[in-house]
């Protein structure tokens, strides 16, 4: 292979110098921001989840699941699987992971839905942001992991940032897709009664884009949970620790325990969140079928 056709270009040194200067100039400030977020948001949630008696947490999740699913069987199955995680001795680590995941997923929803909606509305925004989403999903986080740690200190904050960057795009994309697919005739009829942009959004676009958006939420949940190990690589405590440990010590069993816990967490979070996205009609049909 002859690569002589290529010019020689490198921005590596410039980039290194730039990051260094950012760290020097803003590192302290960002560390403080990070500490603030930790103290006000992440640590309290985690503390609360860990301090609460497992039975209370299980009961709470059971109630939430039941209200969403309205199926006794499934609810029991979910609570039992979470109990099973406890039996594996991973309760505390699961709560630590859950805290980070809840925060990440909720932040994804808060950011992703509006961005997706705006992208569906404005072609130019979609043009501008689509490549950004591509970069978010494919630029390897192992590259920016260390700069993130240098800027935000090791631990939960860069973990949440990395999780957000990685798991936000599918929600945005599928929200945009869903809204774009809404039948033009229905939209026209809805407009003809003088509905405001908001009313159209809430009564027509979002409900009709529902399957697509729910798929987006599902994917975001899955991606976030897939980041558990990376989160532990940048210092967030939780199930990822055990997996890393299993990895370096050829102890699959230990890793698999934690892996099973991650999967259970993912499925429980996903099914519960999906169940709250059911329409009244689907809910009625469900409760008629499953007793």
């Amino acid at each position, binding site marked *: 292979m002859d690569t002589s056709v290529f010019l020689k270009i490198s921005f590596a040194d410039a980039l290194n110098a730039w990051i260094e200067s950012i760290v020097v100039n803003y590192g302290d400030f960002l560390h403080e921001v990070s500490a603030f977020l930790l103290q006000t948001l992440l640590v309290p949630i985690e503390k609360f989840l860990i301090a609460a008696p497992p039975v209370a947490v299980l009961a709470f999740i059971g109630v939430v699941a039941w209200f969403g699913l309205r199926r006794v069987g499934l609810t029991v199955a979910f609570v039992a699987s979470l109990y099973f995680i406890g039996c594996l001795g991973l309760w505390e680590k699961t709560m630590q992971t859950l805290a980070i995941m809840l925060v990440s997923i909720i932040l994804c929803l808060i950011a992703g839905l509006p961005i997706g909606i705006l992208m569906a509305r404005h072609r130019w925004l979609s043009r501008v942001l689509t490549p950004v989403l591509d970069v978010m999903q494919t630029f390897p986080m192992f590259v920016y992991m*260390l700069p993130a740690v240098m800027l935000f200190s090791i631990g939960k904050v860069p973990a949440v940032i990395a999780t957000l960057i990685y798991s936000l795009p599918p929600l945005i994309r599928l929200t945009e897709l869903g809204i774009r697919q809404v039948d033009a005739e229905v939209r026209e009829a809805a407009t003809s009664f003088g509905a405001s942009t908001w009313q159209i959004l809430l009564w027509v676009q979002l409900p009709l884009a529902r399957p697509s958006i729910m798929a987006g939420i599902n994917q975001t949940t899955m991606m976030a949970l897939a980041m558990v190990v990376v989160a532990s690589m940048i210092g967030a405590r939780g199930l990822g620790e055990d997996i890393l440990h299993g990895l370096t010590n050829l102890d699959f069993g230990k890793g698999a325990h934690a892996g099973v816990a991650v999967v259970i967490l993912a499925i429980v979070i996903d099914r519960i969140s999906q169940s709250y996205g059911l329409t009244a009609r689907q809910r009625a049909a469900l409760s008629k079928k499953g007793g």
Partner: protein
Amino acid sequence: QTKPAWCAADKPVKFAGITWESGQFYTELARFFVENGFGCKTEIVPGSTAVTETALVSNDLQVWMEQWGGRTDIIRKGKEAGKVDLVGSLLKDGTVEGWYVPEYVVKGDAKRNIKAVAPDLKSVADLPKYKDLFKDDEDPSKGRFLNCPTGWDCEKNNNQKMKAYKLNATYTNFKPGTGGALDATIASAVERGRPILFYYWSPAGLMGKYKFVQLQEPAFNEACWKTIFGSTTDEACGSATPSTNLSVGVSTPFKKDAPEVIKFLSALQMSGDQLNPIIAEMGEKKTPAADMAKKFVANNKAIWSTWVPASMVAQIEAKAK
């Protein structure tokens, strides 16, 4: 016993969470003393090596046990910038690094009915003859040498050694990417009784678990080592890797504010004979590192009492019960 200034300011001493067994043991051992002897709060922060090392440089972590004499650039650069320091010598005889094959390749294993496939394989110079034995699946015309994980110093050293031993024509220089992948490949070969050629080091869990034979290399030679370590010259000449010091990485601010702890860490030392059974037990019985550390303290007063001020011994002894 007064608290070190660092701890008196109510700052926790954050240890890097190390994932391999010896590192975990050292970390827990040091924590035991720092908590119970020096009265500090401690935490372990997990993370990949690169991340925790970066955090050490920026003083987000304070202690990184079991540093391989700066195996990576991160610590080296941090040291140059005066942000971290390496103290102590955890292992009496230092570390061993080299090129290995499983013992059965040379000697056979009667119990598993494995014949010695390379009874004459003694040194790296013999390797070209055995290239078919260590066949590379991706390029079957060559043998495969499993290098050290990508990016570590040992990987770069081995690149040079490949040149020095003139193996590039007969062997592919296969980089396993991560330590875990290297371990898994070795373990798989050993379980199946297959020949395999790889770089490894000690202390390490795998070393206790399996029997390996180190291939001879030309004796350590200062001049040749310079063509290997930190060099990319094509005229490398062979040299065994010198034993390095297993030290403790500490952040400079911590070093300044907790000289008492630094003194302890500098004194902390075990011999290979003391460490190896501990690693082996951790690997086999999956005993948590903290339990092993406590057990060690309880049973080996003679060893650790030299690490701490005399005034602290009784207190430690009491906590270990």
